[in-house]
């Protein structure tokens, strides 16, 4: 992955090593997936917690953002 871009002298393109990026990607990836789950799918096919409050609250957004709602 560390294909260090042998740059022409005038433009040197930086690159972020995977070791630096991985913890951020993992942590925010999990948070992002969590948020998207509650907005997109919760209390439709799967319900955590049980009920319909989240589904009802984000109902219009779920339809308009293209997720299967009900």
């Amino acid at each position, binding site marked *: 992955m560390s294909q260090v871009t042998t740059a022409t002298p005038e433009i040197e393109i930086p*690159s972020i090593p995977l070791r630096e990026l991985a913890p951020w990607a993992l942590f925010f990836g999990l948070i992002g997936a969590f948020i998207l789950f509650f907005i997109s799918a919760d209390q439709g096919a*799967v319900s955590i917690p049980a009920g319909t409050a989240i589904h009802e609250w984000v109902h219009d957004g779920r339809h308009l*953002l293209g997720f299967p709602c009900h």
Partner: protein
Amino acid sequence: MTPRNFLVRGLLAGLIAGILTFAVAYIAGEPSVDAAIKVESAGETPHAHGQSAPATHGGDHHDENGTVVSRQNQSTWGLATATISTGVAFGGIVALAAAFALGRIGRLRPSQSTALVAALGFVSVALVPFIKYPATPPAVGNADTIGSRTTQYFVMLAISVLAMIAAVLLFRKLLDRFGTYTAVLTSAAAYLAVVILAGALMPTVNEIGDFPGDTLWYFRRGSLMTLATLWGVIGIALTGLIGKLYVQESATQARRDLAASL
């Protein structure tokens, strides 16, 4: 250029995108959501096998055990919650993907690789799944099949995103040997081949019944505008912010190099 710099800018871009997406969804999408709910509550539940289990949604008129959220709240605060949360989540994810792509896609400069990541994200996360499983308004869709439809939607989404990642990796492999033109053409064709095959093999969902065709189209057009706004604004805002960051950091670096050379 650190992961933190990218993430912070991605969250900001996502926040802006979420707010603008709310405006577009409210103006372009809500009228047809309301029209669809009118169809639904008129009792003409158009799906073929549906009337046994009325879906628990769609407003203050019917729900047997669920929480009641008024249409007024659903179309304003509820919609804003959904668009802003989704915007911030996708903004952060796109930013970290752009951080990974930085300096790893040919000779693209930071703003260019960031714009490319956002564009490919729109195609693979929003557009392609939409083409196979388009958004459905309230009153379309049988409550009994929500499980299978949700699974199918997310399987299609996963195939599309994984195929896009594979296509970009393929592009990197081909770039040095065959040049940009052939590498782009081959990897784009490979992505299309995978999603078209997947689309052909995945089951078709048709629960439209006799739902009015014009309302369906207005809803889907509004939904597509909503998604395009979300991804478009994330891409535009993040590209601008990363471009500016790169200029600043290059200038700092140039000053440092000059100072060191003295």
